[in-house]
């Protein structure tokens, strides 16, 4: 386990009394996975991240981070983790290479070794073109890459990325995904928060959704979506052939069936394998197919099913 928390809590004193930001979070993040942390704004994502990264002390609960007890030895946790804040952390008047050297030295590395590591990071994150210019001249995507390079300059086993792709153009975002996958390939565990459901779906091995300071659900994106309702296949038939529902109801992969005005709607576990079988069955009985469509539930449907609200509205 890279991270295991039990009942992690944090409240803040606000103008109208205490506000609970994190209300008992239980999480497990496994070694070497990309873990996505989702939730609407103000759900407790960033607070949880800051608790786990030792930037805040929890009010209650326990957590083990990178093999160390968070409350007993926050200093040791700091040595083992990297943290990249949402808004970045470069200073405009210095160059990326200078920042990288200084950051390495903050981890107790000597000057020569720090230079070597900075050069390696410049190569690994492809910063060559601008690493010796001052940070204030960088584009958003360039700055974000420097931020990540700074966060992992000490080769931590675990890195926290707070919304690493927010505000990036599609190309920079694709680049960032590649970097995150590369870090996993190098053996790092990546814990990231994101607003983008497609991103969590495509990039993360497992995700957890937080709402009102509590974990609503945790699992692989595929499992979570399947758990909802399976997938939906909409079949369009010329004239709504009445034999079709009876014929398909007997098929083993069909979990539910609903006649519609111009065809049927089928609930199945796995649409990708069900579609050819549906087509074969109907074809074999001489029923003419006009159209076939697959609807996959999204992580938003998962959130909707659990909370009755849409994640997308707040995101």
């Amino acid at each position, binding site marked *: 386990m890279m991270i295991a928390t039990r009942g992690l809590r944090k409240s803040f004193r606000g103008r109208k009394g205490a506000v609970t930001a994190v209300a008992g979070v239980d999480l497990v993040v496994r070694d070497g996975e990309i873990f996505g942390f989702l939730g609407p704004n103000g759900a407790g994502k960033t607070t949880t991240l800051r608790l786990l*990264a*030792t*930037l*805040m*002390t929890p009010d209650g609960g326990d957590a083990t981070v990178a093999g160390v007890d968070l409350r007993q030895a*926050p*200093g040791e946790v*700091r*040595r083992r*983790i*990297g*943290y990249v*804040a949402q*808004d*970045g*952390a*470069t*200073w*405009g*008047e*210095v160059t990326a290479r200078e920042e990288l050297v*200084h*950051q390495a*030295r*903050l*981890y*107790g590395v000597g000057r020569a070794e720090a230079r070597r590591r900075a050069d390696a990071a410049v190569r690994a994150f492809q910063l060559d073109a601008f690493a010796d210019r001052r940070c204030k001249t960088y584009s958003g995507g360039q700055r974000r890459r420097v931020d990540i390079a*700074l966060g992992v300059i*000490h080769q931590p086993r675990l890195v926290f990325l707070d919304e690493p792709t927010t505000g990036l153009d599609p190309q920079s975002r694709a680049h960032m995904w590649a970097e995150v996958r590369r870090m996993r390939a190098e053996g790092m565990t990546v814990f990231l928060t994101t607003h983008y459901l497609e991103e969590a779906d495509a990039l993360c091995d497992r995700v957890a959704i937080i709402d009102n300071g509590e974990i609503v659900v945790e699992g692989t994106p595929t499992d979570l979506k399947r758990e909802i309702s399976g997938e939906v296949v909409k079949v369009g038939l010329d004239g709504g052939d009445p034999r079709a529902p009876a014929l398909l109801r007997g098929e083993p992969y069909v979990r539910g069936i609903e006649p519609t005005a111009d065809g049927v709607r089928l609930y199945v576990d796995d649409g990708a394998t069900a579609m050819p079988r549906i087509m074969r069955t109907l074809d074999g009985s001489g029923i003419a197919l006009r159209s076939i469509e697959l609807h996959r539930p999204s992580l938003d449907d998962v959130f909707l099913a659990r909370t009755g609200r849409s994640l997308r509205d707040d995101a």
Partner: protein
Amino acid sequence: MKLVRDTWLVLTRQLVLMLRNPVWLFVGVLQPLYFLVLFGPLLRPVLGGADAFTTFVPGLLVMLAQFGTLFVGFGLLAELRAGIIERMRVTPVSRLALLLGRTGRDIVMLLAQASILVAVAIPFGLSVKAVNLLLTFVLLSLVAQLLSAVSYAIALKLRSEDAFAPLLNAASTPILLLSGIFLPMTLAPAWLRHISEWNPFSWAVQAARALFAGHPGDPHVWKALVILGGLAIASAAWAARSFARGVR
């Protein structure tokens, strides 16, 4: 030792940044220079001829130490907004070093400015022994350490320029006036003198004047060193705790 190494690391970065934009060093010394050149001559008839500068320059040096450092929190607010402080707080770097590296930069800057001021004052007839000047610089360093730590601690507490600026203005004017910088507090009525006795910077000014007058044995000197030394340590502890806030 980790604290010394970490402090050096933070200090050198801050000094490099300062040297990249050295114009502020000179801008900072302009205000006391104006006072020296445009106001000092006015004091001669009041304070008794050639000795006027022996009284006036130590006051200006303490003023420089106060105003050069009280506002350093603004720089920290910019660093906070850029995420620099948070990035450093997730590293194992010593929290005290995050403070001492910055106050160290402020002291270096102040001593450079103070040297300029003294160098300019010498042609006006100022004379002071090297050892006494050195002791004065120690005193100024303590004032700078105290006030820049306070400035950083308040900046970390308020986290907003909008609140920071008016607070500093409200606090700095009485501190300045009660230090007896322009005229010795011996000229003040009794009630004002009693209040100023509670102002540690008034002690700094009197000690600096004693040193410039060539009396390092004056009790004001050791008392000021003890008072400001104690306050500097207390403020460093407070500010370092603010840097570690929420983190142990």
